[in-house]
Each structure stands twice: as C-alpha cells, then as structure tokens.
C-alpha cells in the first residue's frame, strides 16, 4: 500500500486551485521508518508527504486543534478515520465545505514491529465512508466483511468475575492519569473534559487506582456508540494499557442490542446514545 505519489499530486493540485489552506497528511520522521502527521501549509513542502502502511495515526484528531479551526483543510483519511470524520460532521464539529477529504482504500496499517494491527485484521470498513475523491480514482472499494467479535474480548469475557476484576484492577493501577488517551481521541473534542471540571463535586484529579477506574470508565462510556476503533488512544498510552478492550466491548454490546449500530458509518447517523428504539431490551429493568 503506497499512495505517496498520488497524494502529492492531489495536494499540489488542491493548493494550485486554491481550495485549501492546510493539507494534513503524513511525513517520515526523518530518523527511522515511522511516520508522523504533517500539517503542510506551504505548497512547496508537498514533496514531504508520504503514505504507506506505516501511516497509522488518525488525522481527524487535528480537526479539533486551535490552529486548524475555520481553515480549509485537505485531509487524508483511511476507513476508520473517515468514520470519525463522519461523526464529527454529524455532531457539527467541522464544516463540510471547509474540508476536502482524500480517501484511501486502506489495506491495513502495521505497528512498530511490522505486524498488521489487530483492529485492521478485524476491520469491516477499509474503505472511507465519506470522501471527496479516492486516491486511486475508484468510487468505492470491495464489499465489507461481516462484523466479527474481537478475540481479546472473547478471552476476557470467558474469565470469571474474580479474574476479570483482578485483570482490570491491574489495568487501572498501571494508568498514570496523563489523559493522553483522551487528547489523542478524535471524538473527544470537549473544550474541557467533564471529569477535569474542578468545580464539580465529582472531580477526582489524583492518580490512584480508583481515580483511574473512574476516569477510564467514564471516558469509555461517553465514547460508547461513538468510538470508531482507530486506536489512537492505545498508541498514545505511555503505559501501553489495553484500552481497546473497553471500547470494543461497548461496541459489541451496542451492535448486538441496538439494531447493529456501528459508529459513523452512515452520513447523519448519530451515536448510539442519541437515538432509541421501542425494541431496545427492557428485560434487565425491574
């Protein structure tokens, strides 16, 4: 998967036509094989752009940054990124007319060791669901494979209660409350997170196991039905916590119970908690 040349062409074309102020793509780090996001403002720097299977980071995160607000942006999106973008559009966080979306028919990205990422193996939306042009000119790619239950989830769910509690206690204990997960998440765009509101009596700012439980659980529940499984959070976590477990579990519960809802798949489709159905399960309520 190498679309470097096509992306450079598209970016220079967009700059030449005056359609964008910033082009958000990837460039090489300059010292190893990995890539970093690149915010290109100068048309002469277009040659820095690359795209290979090392282009991991979800760029839609940059739409919430101050210096990209109200600018016309060209952006490279993979399948999962485009779902995030779709939700951001639905939730009125970005203006569609400010965006020029370059879609990538993604075949999966790899981690630092060159192995295909787990979420890419299970990916069901490799092709962008929203785009202005596809990088290879095709209107859309192959049919999406069916929804799969994550293997990690199955392993955890197979444990008994005591084991699960012990496992997650270790997770919460290893959390250092740096909030990198939240900041790297494209869907967390609140100017100030509710759990950081020092004015609130629910505030718990210290770094203890229970505060990590409180912060991570609240965070994952606020993202339930909106998480697009890009795993920016896991890549950002300095403690390498398996944060996807919480999100994938929520995704699965929502998929099974709420009419196969998946976040950001259709345009105008809001998160699972912003709608309801008369057929939602009721049997757990007394």
């Amino acid at each position, binding site marked *: 998967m190498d679309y470097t040349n096509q992306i450079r062409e598209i970016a220079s074309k967009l700059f030449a036509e005056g359609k964008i102020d910033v082009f958000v793509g990837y460039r090489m780090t300059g*010292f190893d094989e990995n890539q970093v996001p690149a915010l290109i403002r100068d048309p002469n720097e277009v040659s820095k752009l690359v795209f290979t299977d090392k282009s991991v980071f979800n760029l839609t995160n940059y739409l919430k940054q101050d210096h990209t607000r109200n600018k016309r942006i060209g952006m490279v999106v993979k399948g999962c990124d485009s779902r995030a973008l779709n939700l951001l559009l639905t939730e009125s966080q970005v203006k569609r007319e400010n965006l020029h979306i370059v879609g990538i028919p993604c075949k999966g990205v790899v981690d630092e060791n060159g192995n295909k990422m787990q979420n890419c193996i299970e990916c069901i939306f490799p092709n962008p669901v929203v785009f202005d042009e596809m990088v290879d000119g095709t209107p859309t790619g192959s049919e999406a494979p069916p929804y799969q239950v994550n293997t990690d989830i199955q392993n955890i769910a197979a444990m008994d209660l005591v084991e699960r509690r012990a496992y997650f206690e270790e997770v919460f204990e290893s959390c*250092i409350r*740096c909030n*990198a997960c939240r900041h790297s998440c494209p869907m967390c765009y609140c100017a100030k997170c509710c759990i950081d509101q020092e004015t609130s009596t629910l505030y718990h*700012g210290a770094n203890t196991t229970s505060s990590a439980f409180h912060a991570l659980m609240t965070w994952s529940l606020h993202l339930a039905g909106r998480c697009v499984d890009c795993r920016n959070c896991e890549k950002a976590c*300095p*403690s390498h916590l398996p944060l996807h477990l919480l999100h994938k579990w929520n995704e699965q519960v929502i998929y099974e119970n709420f009419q196969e809802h998946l976040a950001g798949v259709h345009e105008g489709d809001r998160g699972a908690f912003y709608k309801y159905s008369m057929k939602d399960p009721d049997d757990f309520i007394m």
Partner: protein
Amino acid sequence: MSVELFVTDKAGLTKFYEAIISKNETYAPVEKFGKYDFKRVSSFDACNPDAPIAQTMSAKPLFFPRSAKIMKYTADHSGTSVKETDEDSLAGKRVILGMKHCDARALQVLDKVYNWDYIDTDYQRRRENTVIISARCDKAETHCFCTSLDYDVEHSDAMDVAIVNGTDGKVFIEARTEKGKVFLKEMNIEQRISNNEFQVTDETAPAAVKQQYEAFAASFRLKMDYTEVNARLSKIFDSPEFENVSANCISCNTCAFVCPTCHCFKISDEKVKDTGVRYKSYDSCNNGYFTLMAGGHNPRPVKYRRWRQRALHKFVYYKERFGENLCVGCGKCTNSCPVNISIFEVVKQVSETVSV
C-alpha cells in the same frame, strides 16, 4: 573521589542481584502490558534490571509519587482535625535496581529545585534512604542523546553503584559514592571476593571500563553541541519557528508524565462525606488550563506558547536559575509521543533559525 572497582561475571552479577533483593526493600523494572515500571520486587525472576529505556517508565515516582497525599482531614460534629500524612514508607532503606544513568542523573537535577528555598523533606528523606544501582548502557537507543548534554555521563556519580559490562563476559562493579561503598560492604563484598564470586580488579580494569564507554558514546545517532544550542536558545523567545515545530503536537501531556525531570504538580482536594485528602499530583505545562486563572486570564493560551515554555524551561530557564540542564537526554518523551515529536529535533531545529 576514590573509586572501588570489582570484577565479576554474569552469573556472579545475578547472584549479587539476588542477594540484594533478598536482603533489602528493592525496586526494579517489572513488566506490565509490555511496559516496565519500577515496582517492589521480591525475586530476581520477577524483574528485569536490563529493561530498555524506551520501554521503561522513569523511576521518578519513587521519589516524587504520581499522587502524594499531603494532608488528611476529618470534619464532623466534634470538630475539625487535620493530619499531615504521607503513608508511603519513607522510613525504610531502599535499593533501586536497573535505573539507567540518565534517570539517576535526573534526580540530581531535581535536587536543585527541591532544595532551594523551602526544602521538601519527604523528597529529601526518600533520596537519602535510597541506594541506586545502575547499569551503564552498552548501546544508545534511537532517541537517546545524553552525551550531548552538559553532564559527565562517563563519571556520573548520580548512581551509588555502577555496573559496566566489559568484554569477554566480564562485569565491573564500581562504587561511585560513599553511600555505594557502605552498601557494598553491607552486601559482604569481602566474603564474595573470598568465595571467588567477585575479584579485585587489576590495573587493566579502568581501561576496560573506559573502552566500554567509548564504544557506547560512539553509538549515538543524535549529537549536538550543547553550549552552542543553549546560547542560541536563550535568544530565541520570539521565534516564529515554535509555531511550526509545535503544529503536530496534540497536547496529550504524555511527555511530561513520563519525563524523569518534569516536576510541576497540581494540588487537589478529594472528599467523601466528612473525610478528605489533599493530593499533590503530576500536571503538565502542555495542558491548556495549566496557567488559566480563576478570573479567566491565561498567560499561555495557545499551544505554541506552552510548547515554548516546555522547551525553554528544559534547555534555558532551569540552566539560568539552577545551573543545570533540566533535560537529561533519555528520550522517554519521544518514545512515548503518539506523533513522534522529538525534543532533540525541535530544539535543534529552532536553534538553527538564529545565529549566535
């Protein structure tokens, strides 16, 4: 400073480590989710003193906890009672294994800020009670640049006992401080010598240690001229380049939380019913509301200003104030950064925009 140097082999070193762990309250890197963090260990198998820098958290929390209780109180009908607290075991003597020299150096740098004006007694006590045993790296990792900075990596006395891997499986053990010498005595170094686990070194040993250092120093990918960079950076406050280098940053604060020298903290009160605790926990200057005042005024409202504060605090301000560079070149921030911003590259790139 006189130096005590012994030589042993891998097996002897392992035995030495085992003896340390069995006799002392020992902290060493323990793996969890693929990342090493310093934890209390009770057996050698549970830990990995040779954990790579990139995968290891800093040992800073052992001295400056991620969240320290500074006060407790109860307030009920009978009145209010306030108790100073720190239930961390401060009293006991502890040993830290597997701390890298950059991490150990960071503590020396932190000593300066903790010991000016008001002296932080908790930190001070933890420092005094701790013996640091540190293995010198054999090879620089991708983001390391400790040799480019203003301290002497080769003869660093930040660690009490230094361990150096020589050639032919030889391992040199060197007491670098008085504390280290006393500790080696406590660990029955003489008996080990008579057991032939350890040998007293001959005159070739210092050369072998030096040779290892030279090989190590040659393996660095990142090199810069510190004096020049520092001089350039001190004039660069208004450089527009900061805006460019910080554009990628997503303000996730990871860098500050993994940094061995970042020491900013916040104070927060937590209460449940009629009891409460006041915590002192890490905070990061990359946070948008780090300097936001109650009145709504924020001296550093935009990202590049916060970035500039971080970079210049590390490389200029601290040096001006306390005479040491706050960055120790461990590369932990770059390793943890989700968008791979390298403080080395940033500082170098910005400094190149001005002439001296």
